């Protein structure tokens, strides 16, 4: 995420209401500083806030929003995960609005970072999404097979294994070949005998008669017979 894309919404927040300073920090590191104070002063403040948050966290206290009022203005500190947004404003009544806007910014910021990490192929995120399978392997994976395909593949594997199995003695194998040839011929003859005659395609008349036979027990239909397409001679 570029610094410009972060500074845009922060500048909008900086110009909202009576806000006069915005600072985005990650732990004790200042990421964006839009405060009207010197950098050293801001660094001191961010370090002090990080120490305070660390103290609360150490004692198992979940403090994620703080607001303090001073003679020169108010400070609203909102924390979301490892990022912290510090906003200075003049009117104490605006604190809830500023806190909401800050939380919305941090949520958006997190979402953008997450999206960028996915786009960059972060290993950790691939592990979450793909169940520990690297992205290259995920790309190779095809659509799950149908059961029929799976059975066909399994039988093909079995045949391959049989082919690889140790060969029998030459004489025995010749005998076996002759037996299998005879069996094949017999099976072909049987097949030719048992083969059913080709099914004759039913004509339109047969279809109409068949339906008539089916409706023997039923009262006669009052509907007119189905029309047949007739070609008129010009």
């Amino acid at each position: 995420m570029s610094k410009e894309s972060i500074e845009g919404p922060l500048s909008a927040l900086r110009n909202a209401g009576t806000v006069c300073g915005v600072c985005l920090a990650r732990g004790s590191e200042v990421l964006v500083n839009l405060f009207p104070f010197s950098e050293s002063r801001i660094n001191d403040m961010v370090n002090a806030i990080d120490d305070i948050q660390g103290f609360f966290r150490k004692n198992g206290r979940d403090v994620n929003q703080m607001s303090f009022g001073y003679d020169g203005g108010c400070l609203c500190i909102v924390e979301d995960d490892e990022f912290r947004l510090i906003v200075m404003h003049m009117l104490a009544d605006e604190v809830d609005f500023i806190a909401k806007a800050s939380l919305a910014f941090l949520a958006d910021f997190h979402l953008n970072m997450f999206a960028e990490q996915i786009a960059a192929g972060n290993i950790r995120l691939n592990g979450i999404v793909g169940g520990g399978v690297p992205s290259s392997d995920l790309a190779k994976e095809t659509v799950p097979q149908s059961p029929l395909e799976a059975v066909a593949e399994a039988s093909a594997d079995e045949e391959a294994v049989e082919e690889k199995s140790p060969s029998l003695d030459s004489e025995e194998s010749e005998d076996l070949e002759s037996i299998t040839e005879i069996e094949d011929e017999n099976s072909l003859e049987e097949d030719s005998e048992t083969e059913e005659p080709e099914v004759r395609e039913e004509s339109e008349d047969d279809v109409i008669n068949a339906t008539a036979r089916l409706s023997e027990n039923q009262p006669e239909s009052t509907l007119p017979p189905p029309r047949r397409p007739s070609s008129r001679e010009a």
Partner: protein
Amino acid sequence: MTLQECAQIIGERLEMNAIAFGVIYEGGETSAFRYDPSSDPQQPELVGALVNRRMPMREVLLSLNDFMNE
């Protein structure tokens, strides 16, 4: 560490030593304090509040103001 100390430490870094109030959200609770502006600066009067829900900070501060003005 109390909330007042937090406010004091941060205020010192920004050279804003006159503290007016402090509010924090801790889990599902709201803790707040406010100095009485009309009290003696050498011996300021302090009002605190602990609410068992996340109350809007503005409402907390207004409630503390009302309590001081009673």
